[in-house]
C-alpha cells in the first residue's frame, strides 16, 4: 500500500507514547498515513484510541515520540495552531450558538472576511443538508443533525486532517449506515485525510482504506480491510475482526509453502498453505472463517480439502444466510455460515443432522504462537 512515498508520508507518528502515571495508555506506536486516505483506528474499549487521537489534535502532550504532518513536526504545536480539526465523540456543539454561528466560529477565529465566511458556511451547510436549520439552536436539533453540525464545523476550515472520534456511535443503526456512506462521499469530494476512531469493526471495514487494529496501547496490525480480515497476523486480530474458528495443532511436515498439521481438537490432520512455513513440531493454530467452510450431507469426494464429520448442534436462520454450530466427534464446536441460495422446497438442515464440513487448504490462516 505505502509503496512509493515511503519516506515522506502525510502523517507520520514516531514511537509515540502516553503514560498516565504508571499506566501506559499508548505504547510507542509508529504510524504512517497517506494524503487523502480514510484511515481507521479500531480497538476495544480502553485500548487508547481516544488518547492517540487527542495527541494528534494536541490536547494531550505525548510522554515521548514525535508527530509529523506534511513534513512538519507538530508535536509541540498547541491545538489552535495545528491544521487539524477534530469531531468529538460528544459532538461538543456550542449550545449557546445557532447552527450557523457554530459552523462559522472557526472561520471567525481565522479573521476571514465576513462575506467569504457566509459563503463558505452556506456551502458547508448545504453539503451536510442543514441549510434549513441555520438559525436553530442545538437543543432544537435531533442527534443526527447535531452530529452533522459537528462535522460541518470541523470541515469548514478545510483542515489537512480531520480526526473523528467514534463519529457514528450515538446514531441508530439505520442512520449510521446512511451516514457512513455520506461520510465517505464527503471525504471523496473534499479529499481531506480522515482518521476515524471506532470500536465497531463493521464500520471500520466499510469506511476505510486502511485499518489499524489496536490493543492495550499498541498496534497489532495495520492493513487494508481485506488484509486484516483475510490475513490476520495473530490470534487477537483474527478474533477481534469477525468470527473465526481456530484449531490448535502441531506441525507435522512442512515444505514448499505447504504444511500438514496434526490437530487433536478435530481428530484429523489438516492441510494449509503459508509463505514462511513454521518448523516441524512447532505449536500453531489454524484459523478458518465460517463462510469459507462448506457444509453438506454427503461426503465430498475432493480429497484435497480438509473434511470433518459432525452433528448440527444449533443453527440460526437470518434470511439471506444461515449460521450453524457443528459439534465434531471430538466435542469441538465449529461455526459455519451458508448462503440460502435456493428458496427451499427441499428439506433444510435440522438439529442433530449428520453433516460433513470441508474447506480449501488455502482458506485456512496459519497463526504461529
Amino acid at each position, binding site marked *: 500500500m505505502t509503496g512509493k512515498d515511503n519516506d515522506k508520508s502525510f502523517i507520520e507518528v514516531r514511537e509515540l507514547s502516553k503514560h498516565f502515571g504508571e499506566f501506559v495508555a499508548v505504547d510507542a506506536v509508529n504510524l504512517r498515513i497517506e494524503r487523502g486516505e480514510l484511515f481507521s483506528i479500531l480497538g476495544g474499549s480502553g485500548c487508547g484510541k481516544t488518547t492517540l487521537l487527542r495527541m494528534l*489534535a494536541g490536547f494531550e502532550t505525548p510522554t515521548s515520540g514525535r508527530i509529523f504532518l506534511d513534513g512538519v513536526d507538530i508535536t509541540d504545536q498547541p491545538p*489552535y495552531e495545528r491544521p487539524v480539526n477534530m469531531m*468529538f*465523540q460528544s459532538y461538543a456543539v456550542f449550545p449557546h450558538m445557532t447552527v450557523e454561528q457554530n459552523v462559522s*466560529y*472557526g472561520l471567525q*477565529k481565522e479573521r476571514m472576511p465576513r462575506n467569504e465566511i457566509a459563503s463558505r458556511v452556506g456551502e458547508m451547510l448545504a453539503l451536510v443538508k442543514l441549510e434549513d436549520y441555520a438559525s436553530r439552536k442545538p437543543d432544537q436539533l435531533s442527534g443526527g443533525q447535531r452530529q452533522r453540525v459537528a462535522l460541518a464545523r470541523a470541515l469548514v476550515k478545510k483542515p489537512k486532517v480531520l480526526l473523528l472520534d467514534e463519529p457514528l456511535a450515538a446514531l441508530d443503526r439505520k442512520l449510521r449506515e446512511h451516514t457512513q456512506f455520506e461520510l465517505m462521499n464527503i471525504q471523496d469530494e473534499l479529499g481531506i485525510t480522515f482518521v476515524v476512531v471506532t470500536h465497531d469493526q463493521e464500520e471500520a471495514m466499510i469506511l476505510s482504506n486502511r485499518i489499524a487494529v489496536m490493543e492495550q496501547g499498541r498496534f497489532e496490525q495495520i492493513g487494508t480491510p481485506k488484509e486484516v480480515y483475510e490475513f490476520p497476523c495473530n490470534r487477537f486480530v483474527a478474533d477481534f475482526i469477525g468470527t473465526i474458528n481456530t484449531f490448535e495443532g502441531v506441525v507435522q511436515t512442512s515444505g514448499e509453502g505447504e504444511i500438514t498439521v496434526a490437530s487433536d481438537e478435530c481428530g484429523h490432520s489438516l492441510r494449509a498453505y503459508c509463505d514462511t512455513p513454521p518448523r516441524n513440531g512447532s505449536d500453531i493454530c489454524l484459523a478458518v472463517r465460517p463462510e469459507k467452510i462448506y457444509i453438506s450431507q454427503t461426503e465430498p469426494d475432493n480429497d484435497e480439502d480438509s473434511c470433518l464429520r459432525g452433528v448440527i448442534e444449533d443453527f440460526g436462520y437470518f434470511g439471506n444466510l444461515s449460521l450453524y454450530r457443528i459439534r465434531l466427534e471430538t466435542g469441538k464446536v465449529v461455526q459455519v455460515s451458508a448462503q440460502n441460495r435456493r428458496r427451499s422446497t427441499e428439506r433444510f438442515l435440522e438439529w442433530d443432522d449428520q453433516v460433513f464440513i470441508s474447506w480449501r487448504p488455502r482458506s485456512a490462516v496459519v497463526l504461529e504462537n
Partner: protein
Amino acid sequence: MKRQSRFVFSMLVFGYAFLYVPLLSVVVYSFNDSNLATIWGGFSTRWYGELLKNDQVISALLLSLKIAISAATLATLFGTMAGIALSRFGRFRGRNLFTGMITSPMVMPEVITGLSLLLLFVTLQQLTGWPTQRGYATITIAHTTFAMAYVAVIVQSRLAAMDQSLEEAAMDLGGHPFRVMLDITLPLILPAMVAGWLLAFTLSLDDLVIASFVSGPGGSTLPMLIFSKVKLGVTPDINALATLIMLFVSAGVLVAWTIGRRMQRP
C-alpha cells in the same frame, strides 16, 4: 388512604406555620397603628412613612446597599476566577488543598471570621496606615471574602457539569485559550455567575456579625442599626423595615432560583 393524607396534610400545615407565623406576625404588626409594637391599635401605614423620614435608617440602608453591590460584584469576580481555576487548570500541585480551603469560609463561625478580619485590619493599619477608618471599605472587603466562597462553589459545580470538550472544540477551531474563555466558558457559566452575584448580595445585606466586627463609628449597616434599636425595645417602625427587607430578599431569592432553574437545563 384518606386518613393518612389528612395526617400528612396537617403535618405540612404545622411545619409551614412553624416557619412562617413569626414572619407573618412581623408583617401584620408593621401595619399596626399603635405606638406599642405588641398591642394592636388598628390598621395604618404610618410607620412606613416614618421610616422614610428617619435619616438614620435611610443612611444605614444606603450604606448596606452600597456594600452589598460592591461586595457581590467583587465576590463574583474573584469567585468565578477561583471556580475556573479549580475546575479547569488540571491537577496542579495542592489542588485538593485549595478545593477544601475555598469552602472553609462557608462553615467557619462568623464570629471567628469577623474577629480574624478585625485583627487583620488593625495590624494593617499599624503597618501601613491603611485603613484609617473602618466602614464601607473594610466591610466590603470582609463580605467579599466570605461571599466569594459561595460564588466559587456555584461556578465550579456549573463547570463540572459542563462538557469540557466544548472548550477543547473551540480551541481546536483556532481559538486561543483566552478567547475560548470569553467565547465559550463565560457565556455558559453566566447564569451561575448571576445566581452567585444575587446570593452574595443577599448574604451581604443580611450580615450582622462580621459587619459589627469590622466597622467603626459612623459605619452602621442596616442590620446593625436594627439590632441596636431592638436592644432599646421593639418599635413598630422596625417591623415596617423588617417587612421591606423581607420583600427585597424574597424577590432576590426568587430571581436567583429562577436563573438557577434555567441553568439546570442543558
